[in-house]
């Protein structure tokens, strides 16, 4: 009977200590911008900016970004309450792999289509693994940003 108690105890340790510990490693990457909660709509990902000024919608969605193939990103920036923006905006994109200490090997071309719409040409995630994708949105001297983590599958 004593033996059984030991087994039960070991099992409890596994459930309550080891598993959470295993689950927690690997999702805690230090970051200067907090990665956002992403919402998935069909093949579109939706993010809130950090300063809550904007909603960023883009496709393809974070779960279908291709490995080592050039792709384009269609971005639509809306107001916090989804309103279409009538004032001029600028947007920058940054992406990289924190775990490998590098950014993309390319600088994509960003085309401003007006009303918060942008087309980003020539994105390239050349390695499988965990990438971050960051949008920096500027209106005059004011800026706000949104960041999301994603996994490019091999």
């Amino acid at each position, binding site marked *: 009977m004593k033996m*059984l108690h030991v*087994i*039960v105890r*070991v*099992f409890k340790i*596994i459930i309550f200590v080891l598993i959470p510990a295993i689950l927690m490693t690997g999702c805690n990457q230090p970051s200067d911008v907090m990665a956002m909660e992403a919402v998935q709509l069909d093949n579109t990902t939706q993010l809130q900016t950090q300063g809550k000024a904007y909603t960023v919608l883009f496709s393809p969605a974070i779960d279908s970004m291709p*490995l*080592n193939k*050039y792709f384009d990103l269609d971005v639509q920036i809306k107001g916090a309450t989804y309103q279409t923006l009538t004032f001029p905006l600028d947007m920058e994109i940054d992406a990289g792999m924190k*775990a*490998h*200490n*590098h*950014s993309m*090997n*390319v*600088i*994509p*071309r960003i085309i401003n289509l007006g009303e918060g719409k942008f087309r980003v*040409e*020539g994105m*390239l995630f*050349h*390695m*499988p*693994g965990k990438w971050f994708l960051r949008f920096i949105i500027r209106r005059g001297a004011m800026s706000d940003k949104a960041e999301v983590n994603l996994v490019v599958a*091999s």
Partner: protein
Amino acid sequence: MTSRISTASIFYIASLFFAFLSVNATATTATKVSSDFPAFSKKEIQIIKTLSSQRYTNTSDVSNHVSGSASAIAFGKQLFFSKKLSGDGVISCASCHNPKEDWATHDAITVKRTAYPSTRHVPSLWGVKYNRWYFWDGRADSLWSQALQPIENISEMRGSRVQIARLLISDFSFRKSYEAIFGRIPTLLLHAKLPFRARPVETEKTNADHLAWVKLKPPVQHAINTLFSNVGKSIAAFEETLVSKDSPFDQFVARLTKEKLNTPTELFDSDNGFSVSAAKGLKLFLGKAKCITCHFGPNFSDGEFHHSFLSPVSLQGDLGRYDGIQLLLTNPFNGHGKFTDIKKGSRNKLDFVYLNVEFRGQFKTPSLRNVERTFPYMHTGEFKTLKDVIHYYNTISKRKSVNDHQEILLKSLELSKAEEKNLVVFLKSLNGYRTLSVAQKHSGESNTETGDKL
């Protein structure tokens, strides 16, 4: 009653516990296999299938309008094996990319490249069509523009584009083939008085070749450049045919069906080069050793650049990609130039290239197809055997220096001796057998076609 329940639940708990342990230990969901055969998870099998030569696509090069054309392939093959392309008539592309040495050279480093402070090893041309960039530093963005550089490089073929133009005008057989593909050589060029040799040398404007080049009228220069790039396009069309298939690994992937996972003896085939040891190596390649992060796809390469701590980042060191990008962007034969066949306004990878200090010391990930036979290894050619390469990766942390960009991924792997060996055995399974005879056929035919001895 209570004791029965608790016994049952204890069995349940214990079995969960052991299931948990075993899942964590091997992370597999595959079915029962004898302990010596490595089992592959669904996820692993999915990745393994993306590595098969079956996944090679059959696309043509948008920057080269004769890519895939049978007559250009035949002409390009003649050019590849012809010593007449070189300045002094003694060397051809095949002298360094020898089909009998898997389109490479087994000497560590045969060439001192004058443009670079360091030397680089001759890469094999297997699967070369699938590269995104050419040369170890990616200083060419197409296979055809790559081919133009060795012809004029003074540490390689020592030729010049004007000699190539004279050759095509005067050699009856070459001219016939050329004109059949690209149309008549313009009369402007036929009537021009061409010097014996001439080429632009932007880095050395007092060079005799350069002085002879600038004397030519711009329309003549343009006609020569057009002809020169067509020569490159034909050579490239030939090089595109060098694709290696049917290795023991590819045959293993073809056998990798659900039924055979249950009867692994049918899956592995030691006699034909895919042993249990190769399978264990494959598992390491995908997992613990993380090779798959850079060596993926049917060509086993991401086609991009990484710093593997071989050349230190210093003034004397070979800066690799960092210098390569600058050479690429200033090359008149690049994808933004007048001679590319990329349609204006269409997508061009050159648009997205930029210079970054991170790129110092980075070199292109080579394909691993036929890798056993393409020794020595790395851009430096410093490793003679695959065993040495794997041992290098296994103990790589020792080579890092403070100036190096930290590719955090590359750190010592803690592999045992047996694991190192399994990785080597796996890499050997990437040798394509049938294609070697194709290679031999190429060299044999060339002897009769052009009279060149290899």
